């Protein structure tokens, strides 16, 4: 698990796509923090929101585009290896659970590192690190990574997961916020299955997102164990 995770983590830093995503994260963090005072004067915000204005840009970016970024970088984390048959070398040496968890932790560590740097950058302007929002952000990327891995296990063709990654990346935030705020009883129950419902609350219910991520990973592992390589 550690060996696969390490390789996944390092390989994520090598691609041009990763460089672009890291640049977007850092630029968004820097400018949203730098122009935080300007934002406060321009839009109406609650006291709590105003207090966290420095991380507002970064959290917003990940809420709306996080799934797209993660799918863009890691949509083929499993199915590319299956497609190119390199997965055969892996499954003959270690357990499928170790492969899946290794991939997950490699990607997770990449995002954890990027977000840590981004939050440190904003802390220069905010003069503090908000661990609550940081934890919320980590919970969001955790479920987005789990979902991306599930897609990569479910769909054998890497080209198709790229397409679906874009579709879900764009559709999820829209549908997610809709089910959270809608009064339609037929769909509002779905809010319990989206991270947005738990992130919208100012308490520690965002921990449920980690549990949901675990369920998604468990399901992905269940399928992966039965898949031919």
């Amino acid at each position: 698990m550690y060996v696969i995770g390490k390789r996944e983590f390092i390989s994520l830093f090598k691609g041009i796509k990763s460089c672009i995503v890291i640049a977007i994260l850092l630029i968004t963090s820097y400018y949203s923090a730098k122009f935080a005072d300007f934002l406060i004067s321009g839009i109406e915000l609650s006291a709590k929101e105003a207090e966290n204005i420095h991380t507002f840009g970064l959290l917003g970016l990940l809420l709306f585009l996080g799934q797209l970024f993660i799918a863009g970088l890691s949509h083929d984390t499993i199915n590319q290896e299956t497609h190119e048959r390199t997965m055969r070398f892996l499954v003959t040496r270690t357990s499928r659970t170790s492969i899946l968890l290794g991939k997950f932790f490699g990607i997770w560590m990449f995002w954890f590192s990027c977000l840590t740097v981004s939050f440190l950058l904003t802390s220069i302007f905010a003069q503090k690190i908000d661990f609550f929002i940081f934890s919320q952000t980590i919970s969001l990327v955790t479920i987005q990574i789990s979902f991306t891995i599930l897609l990569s296990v479910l769909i054998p063709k890497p080209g198709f997961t790229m397409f679906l990654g874009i579709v879900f990346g764009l559709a999820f935030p829209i549908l997610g916020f809709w089910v959270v705020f809608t009064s339609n009883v037929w769909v509002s129950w779905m809010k319990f299955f989206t991270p947005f419902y738990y992130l919208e609350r100012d308490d520690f219910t965002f921990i449920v997102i980690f549990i949901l991520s675990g369920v998604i990973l468990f399901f992905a592992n269940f399928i992966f164990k039965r898949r031919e390589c």
Partner: protein
Amino acid sequence: MIAIETKQLKKSYGSVPIVKGIDLIVEKGEIFGFLGRNGAGKSTFINILTDIIQPSFGTYSLLGVEGPNDQVKKRVGVMPDYSTLYGSLTAMEHLKYLSALSGKPAGKEWCLEVLKLVGLESHARKKVAKFSFGMKKKLGIALAIIHDPELLFLDEPTSGLDAESAIHIHKLIRGLQKRGKTIFMTSHNLAEVEKLCTRIAIMKEGQIVKSGTMDELRDFYRSTIKVKIKHSPVPKSEQLNLHQWLESAGTDLEMNDPYVTITVNDEKRIAEIIRAFQQCRADVLRVEVEEPSLEDIFLDE
């Protein structure tokens, strides 16, 4: 000690059976050859044993442990049938990555030693994307042995290799056997299997139709022994008698003076043929008995 044991191992895709209930035992220290035409189910069988695919029915054990088992994987080396390698990694990086994955991280010196064994020592830092097919095959073997496994699965280890490289790999396989390793290999090269393997199984349409040592297989096929006899001239008065007798003694009779070729179904017949020549006042100058080759046995199946 048993290295591989399968009980009624089956694999079907939908209603199409690929492997039809294989019972097999491979002892430790053997080089076991698995033969069969394309599509016979050889690779599917290996893929089940190496956890690449799941069986539809039946059980198997490797090194005494029921599979699939993740701990046993660390004691098993596999060279899959395809050149399944990472194009962006070098040969050395491959060895380091996959040995670490097997729980025995290989140092630089051991990696170079293994690359030397397969004849790739001068390509250690070359990206695999630039490797030829034969070089990928060699690296596949290096990856299979890098963690010093007890049991090796080699799927067509020398296909696509030049003669010199193939001989080099044969030596390597024999050397591994001498060190107590068990090798389970498939091959299309019958001469290779005949030369290397201590036991052989022939697979046809998902089933093992014959298995045993080369001698056991030959014994089974000794019912058809081809005999070539060189003799002194047969007197004209005896020629018809001899011809009639030989026709009754065997099949595929060919008489081209001074040679007679005949296929008999019993070794004892050879002595009778020699006596028949003597009774017809002709001397037998030379007798050549053609043992059934693996090719004969394979083609017959």
